[in-house]
């Protein structure tokens, strides 16, 4: 019997061109500049959108087909995980706090990316870029949904996950990821692409994904591992969009280079600051550790990054201004961040703890230049205090950086005993920053950053109390009122892991008791 000859009418490239090109038009009874009001104001010059090369040519038909198959596989695993009480297979209940950090601080960013790409997908005049952005918008919504589904199972058994969307818009440490993405979304479409597609999805993506996903694999969390794999081919499309857009902008006009450089400087730094949370997670929150933040930085930033910027040198692009300071920070930021959450754990919706002796040894080996000298002594002190029934909780609100909104916990490059302070006077007020690089971002666009909603200032202004609160009442406890406004359950979402319901429950379940699903 003769095999059926498959006769395609068009090749892939032609099919893709047909399905995505020639469907646009030049407007006739409204000015193009009115219909596309954002594509010129950033000063980026595009002479010929036809030079945009689509890295992956997935037509909608192929997209639905393959994404649909991935979904079926993923949800089958999520179901199996739930049916088999997969949450009992994790290394240690402390690990779940890494997932809490993820659903609180990373998952909402997927939704923001979805909205951001939908927006830029409307505002470029180039069809290739519009289609790519729209496809990514759908991918990002998918990531938001699949992460929420994968992690929702844990929500039945552990605290600190129940109000993640609500917390994202209000809770102090979550203004860090929120302000990062809102900064990108409120910029122009070209800045958004350089910020997210290039700086985040290409340059820094491995430093977000690999720590969480390999952390999941090493700690028995099959649900998250499976989500990670399922998202990975989406991410490779996003990466190729990032590198394509930077190439396109730099090849269209040499005058674009200084604009793009400034965005690369800004977004490398903002992305690096955001990754502080991941550094802390990697070094402190994984009972079975994979590699240190320092090692991950050396592998994924220093090695990959230097090859990339060598490649971009031909366009007149140099490595980001903050590169050296970011490399210097690799010995310090994870420890400084953990100390922040440890001491402010009364106000955070996940648990913290002092590492055990074996973990301290690991940290000491991985950080020979810094851990024993600067960071272990206070951890030992905290441990001693906790054992005496005086676990330290800082009750005074921290000073925040106006731009990255992180507490001013970072030290001067090359002096880990001195906090790094920078400031600017602008329009009869004073603004503070954690670094030269956040200050430079502010100084370039002060009107943008003076509008920042800083959680600490908002709390002091009385904007973070439940509706109808009277702060003048005798015995008023402002921190308790803030926690009520936050909807963080005091005594179950916060405080030390050692004293937590999570720990008590997990110990009972490991001893053979049936887990009770929470109502």
């Amino acid at each position, binding site marked *: 019997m003769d095999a059926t000859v*498959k006769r*395609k009418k068009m*090749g*892939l*490239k032609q099919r893709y061109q047909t399905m995505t090109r020639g469907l646009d038009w030049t407007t006739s009874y409204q000015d193009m500049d009115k219909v596309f009001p954002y594509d010129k104001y950033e000063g980026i010059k595009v002479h010929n959108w036809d030079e945009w090369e689509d*890295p*992956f*040519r*997935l037509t909608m038909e*192929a997209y639905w087909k*393959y994404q649909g*198959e*991935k979904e079926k*596989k993923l949800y089958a695993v999520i179901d199996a995980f739930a049916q088999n009480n997969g949450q009992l297979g994790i290394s240690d209940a402390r690990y779940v706090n890494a997932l809490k950090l993820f659903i609180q601080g990373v998952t909402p960013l997927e939704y923001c990316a979805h909205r951001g790409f939908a927006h830029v997908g409307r505002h470029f005049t180039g069809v290739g870029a519009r289609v790519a952005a729209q496809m990514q918008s759908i991918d990002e919504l998918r990531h938001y949904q699949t992460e929420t589904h994968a992690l929702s199972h844990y929500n039945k058994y552990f605290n600190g996950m129940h109000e993640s969307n609500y917390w994202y818009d209000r809770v102090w440490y979550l203004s860090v990821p929120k302000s990062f993405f809102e900064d990108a979304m409120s910029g122009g479409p070209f800045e958004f692409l350089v910020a997210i597609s290039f700086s985040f999805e290409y340059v820094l993506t491995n430093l977000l994904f690999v720590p969480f996903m390999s952390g999941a*694999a090493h700690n028995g969390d099959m649900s998250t*591992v499976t989500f990670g*794999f399922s998202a*990975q*081919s989406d*991410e*490779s499309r996003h*990466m*190729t969009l990032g*590198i394509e857009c930077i190439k396109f902008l730099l090849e269209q006009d040499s005058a674009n280079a200084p604009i793009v450089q400034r965005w690369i400087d800004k977004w490398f730094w903002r992305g690096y600051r955001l990754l502080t949370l991941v550094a802390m997670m990697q070094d402190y929150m994984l009972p079975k550790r994979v590699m240190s933040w320092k090692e991950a930085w050396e592998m994924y930033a220093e090695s990959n990054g230097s*090859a990339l910027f060598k490649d971009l040198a031909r366009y007149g692009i140099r490595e980001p201004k903050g590169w050296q300071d970011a490399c210097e920070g690799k010995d310090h930021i994870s420890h400084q961040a953990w100390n922040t959450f440890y001491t402010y754990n009364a106000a955070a919706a996940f648990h913290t703890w002092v590492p055990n002796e074996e973990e301290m040894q690991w940290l000491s080996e991985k950080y020979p230049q810094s851990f024993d000298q600067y960071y272990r002594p206070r951890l030992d002190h905290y441990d001693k205090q906790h054992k005496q029934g005086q676990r330290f909780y800082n009750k005074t609100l921290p000073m925040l950086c106006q731009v990255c909104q992180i507490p001013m916990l970072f030290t001067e490059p090359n002096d880990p005993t001195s906090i790094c302070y920078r400031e600017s006077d602008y329009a009869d007020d004073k603004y503070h920053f954690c670094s030269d690089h956040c200050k430079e971002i502010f100084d370039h666009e002060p009107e943008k950053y003076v509008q920042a909603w800083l959680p600490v200032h908002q709390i002091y202004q009385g904007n973070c109390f439940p509706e109808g609160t009277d702060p003048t009442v005798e015995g008023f406890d402002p921190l308790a009122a803030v926690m009520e406004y936050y909807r963080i359950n005091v005594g179950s979402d916060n405080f030390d892991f050692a004293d937590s319901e999570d720990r008590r429950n997990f110990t009972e379940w490991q001893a053979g008791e049936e887990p009770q699903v929470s109502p």
Partner: protein
Amino acid sequence: MSDVFIAFQANEDSRPIVDAIIADNPEAKVVYSPGLVKIDAPNRLVINRETIEEEIGRDYDLQEIHLNLVTLSGHIDEDDDQLSLSWDH
């Protein structure tokens, strides 16, 4: 000269793809780690649909690699018969 690479989830679906790549790219090197198979090649790597079809014993749509693709590096060129990664400028 820099390496290009492509990485897949290590499972039965990706096995014939990996075998096809090795057959068509003599300088490629394969590295296995938990759940992942990564293939590095100097400067250029090609994936041919026909070779995969010989391995897999059925018709194959090259875009099926999206089901198991994890990450890659290099400039992509794609059509119905071939996917290539390269650092040629």
